[in-house]
């Protein structure tokens, strides 16, 4: 009898314990989403009322504090650094998955290098860009130096997502293509890459997100200069949106501060759009498999 009540007591205690754990788990889930919502609201509520046409598309001067040229500079950096890093990254992934033999020493070294690149903090990229591209190669503080630095930075993102995507292509496809007499190269370009495209694209989107939010690596390389009107001149020093926000936040005028929030709101909106696109792509990949 006593044994049984003890058992019940024990069971009750365990149940209570489990319930507390469950509550804690839910709380952490809620907390995470709550923090996100809080940050988003904090920036958007104070930023969106300050966005106007002049700020978005006007000429920069001390009144409008327009972000137009920064937006164009950001796009410029995204497009060109992707144009440089995407082929290199995808080719590297192709080498790792399709060409390298198993247990190849070179593969080990390359993997190690990619992992290392992924772990290097942006401030170290900034220092390297400042020493190498700005200094030794003589690109000066310019968009070009920024592009070079950022291209290296996004390389690991593109390589690892491409590699995952290419690995996920069923071997059946390859065998079919090879069996029909296609060469290895043709198989890669006509069969493997198109199938892996959504995965590669999601890597591209991640890379875009990283560039948009980047500041520490660009502040020493592409600089803090702001132009009145956008230019495609790569040798000019220009600031990106994130640096625009940082600079506006640094100058002690109330108007600048409002506009820093406005810039933050634009950043959030871009990041949000980029993430939505990535999620859509991911769910598409999921459905196809």
């Amino acid at each position, binding site marked *: 009898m006593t044994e049984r009540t003890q058992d019940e007591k024990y069971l009750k205690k*365990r149940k209570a314990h489990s319930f507390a754990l469950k509550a804690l*788990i839910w709380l952490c889930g809620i907390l995470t989403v709550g923090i996100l919502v809080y940050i988003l609201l904090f*920036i958007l509520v104070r930023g969106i009322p300050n966005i106007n046409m002049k700020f978005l598309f006007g000429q920069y001067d001390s009144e409008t504090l327009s972000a137009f040229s920064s937006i164009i500079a950001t796009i410029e950096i995204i497009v060109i650094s992707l144009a440089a890093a995407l082929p290199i990254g995808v080719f590297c992934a192709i080498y790792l998955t399709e060409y390298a033999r198993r247990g190849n020493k070179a593969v080990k070294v390359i993997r*190690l*290098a990619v992992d290392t690149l992924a772990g*290097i903090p942006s401030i*170290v990229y900034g220092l390297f860009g400042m020493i190498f591209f700005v200094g030794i190669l003589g690109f000066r503080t310019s968009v070009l130096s920024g592009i070079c630095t950022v291209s290296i930075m996004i390389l690991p993102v593109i390589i690892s997502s491409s590699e995952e995507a290419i690995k996920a292509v069923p071997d059946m496809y390859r065998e079919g293509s090879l069996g029909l007499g296609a060469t290895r190269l043709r198989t890669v370009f006509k069969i493997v890459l198109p199938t892996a495209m959504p995965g590669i694209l999601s890597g591209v989107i991640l890379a875009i997100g990283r560039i948009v939010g980047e500041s520490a690596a660009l502040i020493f390389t592409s600089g803090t200069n702001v132009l009145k009107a956008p230019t495609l001149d790569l040798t000019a020093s220009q600031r990106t949106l994130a640096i625009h926000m940082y600079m506006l936040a640094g100058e002690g005028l109330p108007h600048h501060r409002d506009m820093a929030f406005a810039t933050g709101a634009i950043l959030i909106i871009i990041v949000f759009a980029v993430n939505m696109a*990535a999620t859509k792509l991911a769910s598409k990949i999921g459905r196809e498999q």
Partner: protein
Amino acid sequence: MVRSKITNTEHKINLYENVMQIVFFISALVSVMAVIAICLFLLLRGIPAIAEIGFMNFVFNEKWGPANVPASYGILSMIVGSMYVTAGAIVIGVPIGLLCAVFLAEFCPDNLYRIVKPAVNLLAGIPSIIYGFFGMEIVVPFVRESFGGNGFSILSASIILGIMILPTVISISESSIRAVPSSYAEGSLGLGATKEETVFRVVVPAAKSGVLTSIILGIGRAVGETMAVVMVAGNSVMPLNKIALLKPIRTLTTNIVTEMSYASGLHEASLIGTGVVLFVFIIILNTALSLLKSKSSRN
């Protein structure tokens, strides 16, 4: 005639194959060359400065006064600062992140998952500057009012970094929890354990190496974060005996970013030296990570 044409095209195709194979290989080598270049140029600029200051005097000296005459370049305070802030971020971020990962993997209903999972991804995409702004306007006053001090402190920096490492911890822990074979959980449940007991006694321990990986990656992110920390940590160089949870602090990264703009000569080189020390930290973390990877793949 026809035959020679075929061998000719075959020859061409072969050539093309070989050329592209070389192109692939060279592309693959780019990242290796990048790592070598980064190491080389950082060391080339940083090591002479460290040598001139003296290694012991640089790394184990807590006095940082580049504008003083004679100047002193000791970064011990910042090394310790980086460690404290990172430790704080781990203490705050890992439990919440791990529990959230458990939530996502085991407890979250499907239609809720479609909200929470993108939310976690979005958290990863928010630029550091926005975290910094948020920290300065919300976290710092919160710390000041709730815990005292002036708010710009190790605690504030830890909270912000704790939030920033959440997505890393959550997504990697989640996928490793999901990778645990369901037979483990079924066995435990069949023996009469509750779901919560099963998760914490069986599933999470089985996902141990994935969780550990996520923590190391989180440490990497926290150690290297710059722009968010510079806005909340207060950037004071504190002597070791005065470092406290509610006092301001300077980290390795913020030392570089606040002073680089005006540094010249030995001062600039010493900041690059600070970068070298930071780089060494990251290499150590990466080595730990690859050891962990090779160990778990062997199992």
